[in-house]
């Protein structure tokens, strides 16, 4: 018996662009056939390039190969559209690879979302059995774990109430509880930890940690770097459908966050005045962000002055700075075209999405204002469960604690 749980060899997956909307009306097929009955015949010999019917295609995965050992917890990270979910879908047999193959040694359970197949009209009890069966658990197995599942979800009192009467928190707790009690050797998990309130998220992470410790193989897709760091022993980074990095968790995460353009704004120059032509936020050494602003102007700015304000997701300003009052060295006297870089240390910000507004001007006035033009996710390394911002604010200042016993 080999100690390899999953072996992927050159997996490729091609999608037609817009395929998910591509179902056609039978009417179209019939009218097409009447309009050009011979087109299909004519196209047949050389129709391979554009997938037969001229639709553009995109490779969601290209030549992805890796191995996962038994008992290994592998994190999969990458930007949206990098192919993470497609990979999990192929490994869980929801969709087929276009090329390549994967070999799986052991029973696979996949958790691409919590509560798949939950029906609002059914009671908690009925949904546990239905959802369990969908996750390929046996009826006897579900019955055996029933009390444990209900206790984990903390819904004892409402177990015979239709789940449509549940609060959304109860609903996801129950859904996660069923999934958490799957006993497959291999578990494929996609971002399902982001459910419930802070207390339950902690419980979910704890449960995932238990799963990992019991020698089961786990593939874990997530955007939450702290969870990846906590749970995984190895990590792969997907970029544009290709395996870009495979190795130690910390190394891969660092590689990922340092190269990421988090948000970008591009515009044409203004023919009658100053304009911001490009603005981008990137990660800077894992502890901060860097705002790059390129500008061009029909007259020189004396000197070019940039202002920026960072807002929390509710639109409240968190922090702002401006070349006019932030002391700067080597400030140029005059410039008509160039780039201004601002590095901001964000380790004190709690993890969340922030928005940045920009102003461009000279010593006397502002000419350009871009309202919330950039968006940035901040907070690598900060635990995800915290009291809400409305209670403790956006800033996380460094603290030192001490206790004195009288």
């Amino acid at each position, binding site marked *: 018996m080999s100690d390899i749980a999953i072996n992927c060899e050159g997996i490729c997956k091609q999608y037609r662009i817009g395929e998910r909307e591509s179902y056609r*009306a039978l009417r179209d097929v019939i009218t097409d056939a009447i309009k050009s009955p011979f087109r299909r015949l004519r196209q047949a010999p050389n129709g391979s390039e554009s997938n037969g019917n001229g639709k553009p295609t995109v490779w969601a995965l290209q030549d992805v190969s890796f191995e996962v050992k038994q008992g290994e917890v592998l994190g999969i990270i990458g930007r949206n559209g990098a192919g993470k979910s497609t990979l999990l879908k*192929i490994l*869980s047999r*929801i969709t087929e690879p276009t090329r390549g193959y994967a070999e799986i040694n052991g029973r696979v359970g996949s958790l691409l979302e919590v509560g798949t197949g939950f*029906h609002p*009209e059914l009671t908690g009890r009925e949904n546990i059995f239905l959802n369990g069966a969908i*996750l390929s658990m046996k009826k006897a197995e579900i019955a055996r774990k029933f009390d444990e599942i209900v206790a984990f979800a903390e819904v004892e009192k409402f177990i015979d109430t*239709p789940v449509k009467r549940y609060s959304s928190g109860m609903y996801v707790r129950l859904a996660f509880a069923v999934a958490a009690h799957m006993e497959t050797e291999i578990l494929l998990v996609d971002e399902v930890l982001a459910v419930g309130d802070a207390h339950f998220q902690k419980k979910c992470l704890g449960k995932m940690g238990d799963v990992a410790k019991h020698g089961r193989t786990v593939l874990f897709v997530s955007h939450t770097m702290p969870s990846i760091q906590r749970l995984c022993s190895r990590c792969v980074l997907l970029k544009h459908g290709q395996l870009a990095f495979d190795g130690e968790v910390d190394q891969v995460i660092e590689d990922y966050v340092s190269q990421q353009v988090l948000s970008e704004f591009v515009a044409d120059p203004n023919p009658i005045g100053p304009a911001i032509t490009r603005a981008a936020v990137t990660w800077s050494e894992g502890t901060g962000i860097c705002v790059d602003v390129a500008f061009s102007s029909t007259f020189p700015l004396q000197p070019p002055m940039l202002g920026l304000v960072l807002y929390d997701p509710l639109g409240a300003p968190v922090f702002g700075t401006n070349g006019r009052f932030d002391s700067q060295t080597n400030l140029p006297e005059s410039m008509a075209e160039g780039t201004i870089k601002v590095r901001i240390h964000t380790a004190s910000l709690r993890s969340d999405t922030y928005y940045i507004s920009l102003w461009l001007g000279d010593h006397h006035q502002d000419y350009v204002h871009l309202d919330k033009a950039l968006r940035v996710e901040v907070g690598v390394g900060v635990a995800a469960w915290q009291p809400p911002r409305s209670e403790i604010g956006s800033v996380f200042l460094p603290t030192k604690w001490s206790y004195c016993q009288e």
Partner: protein
Amino acid sequence: MTVTSALQPNGTDVEHVGPVLRIKPSRGWVSLRLGELWEYRELLYFLARRDVTVRYKQTGLGVAWAVLQPLLGMLVFTIFFGRLAKVPSDGIPYPLFSYSALLAWQLFAYSITESSNSVVGNERLITKVYFPRLVIPMASILAGLVDFAIAFVLVIAMMAYYGVHPGWAILSLPLFILFELATALGVGLWLSALNVQYRDVRYTVPFIVQFWMFASPVVYSSTLVPVRWRPLYGLNPMAGVVEGFRWALLGKPPAPGAMFAVSSVVVAALLVSGLYYYRRMEKNFADVV
């Protein structure tokens, strides 16, 4: 690399090499994998149960629907076809004649209506979890059996009222029910897979159901069809099913022999082709649904 070769001793294209599962692109016609379907029989049960429970919980009349539909159909047919048009009913009281056929017909109509939309309707399941996709149309057909059982109680009451005693033929009823389910599954597999590609299929289903009913001996008797044309009439498998139901329950008209034989061949062809077509199309379900 040594590990890879250990996993695939012959480098063959088999699905399972020992306990190892191989995931690879499938080509052409694929195996039905009925063994795997059997492993998932509990899912089939829970999905069918979900369909039944939800339907009865969501409708105001609930269980009454199962009886009302064939009952109202019977009333209308009895008034217009039985009384006014005086359609011959092989010496059976017309209400009983039409209800026994409607009993069979409702099961079929329900099954193909529900199953044709089943794959699209269960989009969430298909895009998020793996299981043998055949379970979905099968579950929606099995759910129809509950309505059937309820409507069946009424036919017994009617037989008692009209003093019709069932003979030995009634023992063959399960056979006709199975035959009907096979027909519905054959049609349902084709329609549900086609409906994923072409969403207007489901708009044609009500039309198909209506058209098919008048092409089947529901309001009239197949004895109206000249004897030499009956095998041809049997090309409609529901003709064999409906007459089979009447014969099993009421003992009249005589057993649909030749017609039923032809129907059997048609059903077998429909079912097998439906299964293979569905299996062939299902690999794209998650991408297209």
